[in-house]
């Protein structure tokens, strides 16, 4: 064995050691939550660092669904997220198409305006919308919440749909027009199916904007039966001594769909990001 080979082996060893340790540190918080969600009630505040606790139990999960309003929050959040997702996809797919295919007065202003919204601090829109919602008596209503979420998600979605349509050759629609389609049919039958990856990202992004959102919901929803997941989980976390297990179990349930969606779509997401979009 020569010196070069030994050096190579040492380098490989160091690489693996580093990446394994780093990965463990990265996933530790997740393992910690799993561990807490499995602890029996009397061992909740244990100082053990074991991942699978002694006498592991699913009691926290059972309790979560039987003696807390968690299911209610889950339904509320699912409803709000689904509406935001539908609105986002519908509006962004049409507006993005118009911005991509046509030249018209004010187009550049719209594109720059969309980019500028990304520099708004959260309160820039939240405070005036909040005051408007009070005046329109839309506090404590999902309509108000959905309006605010849509306003957060829409700029990015329009921008990224437009960027994707730009990559689809116009000649495809021209061919469809020659075959007798009108402008709408050309969009609906030819371009729309081709834009599936971008639609998927738009859907995911609008869904995630609403799914586990706290700072907006905390101001708009004050009646407990309207609470969404994030507000509920925050309550559990605040009374950590007694409800830590519930918090852990609940946050895992909330994270799993989000994480799965994200991982399944991450391929699309990455190609979408490199296609000139602005936000992940």
């Amino acid at each position, binding site marked *: 064995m020569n010196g070069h080979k030994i050096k190579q082996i040492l380098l490989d060893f160091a690489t693996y050691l580093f990446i394994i340790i780093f990965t463990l540190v990265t996933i530790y918080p997740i393992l910690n939550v799993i561990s807490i969600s499995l602890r029996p009630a009397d061992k909740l505040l244990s100082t053990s660092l074991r991942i699978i606790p002694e006498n592991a139990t699913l009691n926290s999960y059972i309790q979560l669904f039987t003696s807390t309003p968690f299911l209610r929050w889950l339904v509320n959040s699912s409803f709000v997220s689904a509406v935001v997702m539908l609105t986002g996809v519908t509006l962004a797919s049409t507006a993005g198409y*118009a911005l991509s295919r046509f030249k018209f007065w004010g187009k550049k202003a719209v594109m720059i305006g969309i980019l500028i919204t990304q520099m708004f601090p959260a309160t820039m829109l939240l405070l005036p919308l909040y005051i408007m919602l009070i005046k329109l008596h839309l506090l404590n209503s999902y309509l108000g919440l959905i309006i605010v979420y849509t306003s957060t998600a829409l700029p990015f979605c329009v921008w990224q749909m437009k960027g994707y349509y730009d990559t689809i050759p116009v000649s495809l629609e021209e061919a469809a027009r020659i075959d007798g389609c009108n402008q709408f049919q050309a969009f609906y039958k030819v371009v729309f199916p081709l834009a599936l990856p971008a639609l998927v990202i738009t859907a995911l992004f609008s869904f995630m904007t609403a799914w586990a959102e706290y700072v907006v919901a905390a101001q708009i929803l004050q009646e407990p039966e309207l609470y969404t997941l994030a507000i509920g989980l925050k309550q559990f976390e605040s009374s950590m001594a007694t409800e*830590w297990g519930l918090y852990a179990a609940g946050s895992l349930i909330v994270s799993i769909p989000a994480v799965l969606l994200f991982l399944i779509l991450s391929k699309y997401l990455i190609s979408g990001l490199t296609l000139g979009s602005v936000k992940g």
Partner: protein
Amino acid sequence: MNRKTLFILAFLLPALLIMFGVIVYPFFYNIVLSFSNMSLRHFRDWKIIGFKQYVKVFTENTFYVVFLKTLVWTFVNVIFHVVIGVFLALILNRKSLKFKPIFRTLLILPWAIPQVITALTWRSMFNYEYGAVNIFIAKYLNMSPVEWLLRPFEAFTACIITNVWLGFPFMMVVALGGLQSIPNELYEAADIDGASAWQKFKNITVPFLRPVMTPAITLGIIWTFNNLNIVWLVSNGGEPSDQTHILVSYVYKAAFNLYRYGYAAALSVVIFLILLVIGIYFLKKTRAVESIY
């Protein structure tokens, strides 16, 4: 009106109406508010009072302190995101590495988890008695536990640690994309010329990474500067005694806990202008938007 105009209108109008209603109108309403005395006491009978709220923003000492903290927060976070992200991407891009998809998936997880849950979970991990961080410090490092959430500096550090954890995967993914676009022949040619690993990194890797990373860093700066979730939830609204605020959490508190609507609106405008300057500077520099029109 011809058919084309009609088509554009039909497609653009719904989105534009909504965007006008929820973005443009509130934006100008916010500017009006920033010149008003609106608060909980003057909610119905508010009136325009000129630049008084802006004067208040710039004459209060807190603004400068919080602004400085925001700069530290943004700078430290983005540096860590980029350094960790690029380093991991370099490792994941090595051909000899096995189980690549597993490492990649696990390392991307912090990005996939909803931010609220990340923040609340780290807050519980920073708990003095029962949090995993202090237990680890006591058991394996033999040091005395740290009062993470009770002291200003430690609480701010806790927020930064949380945010570093959730932010590096984005940079890693972007860097990985950049690395994969580098043609292998360049490295082979460099090998033939006898280039060292450092020379290859400096003269091939970095020039290829730069155009991919600059827009990502611009975004990273804007997102981090603007990230309300982490500071608000990890420090529980600026605890201890409002010492851990960055600008966005400070203005959120002024608006929704202290009901200083006019003041909060003025501060929002100031924050927006700061970000706009930073944003324009970087966009000009990177020309990230040029291809979009």
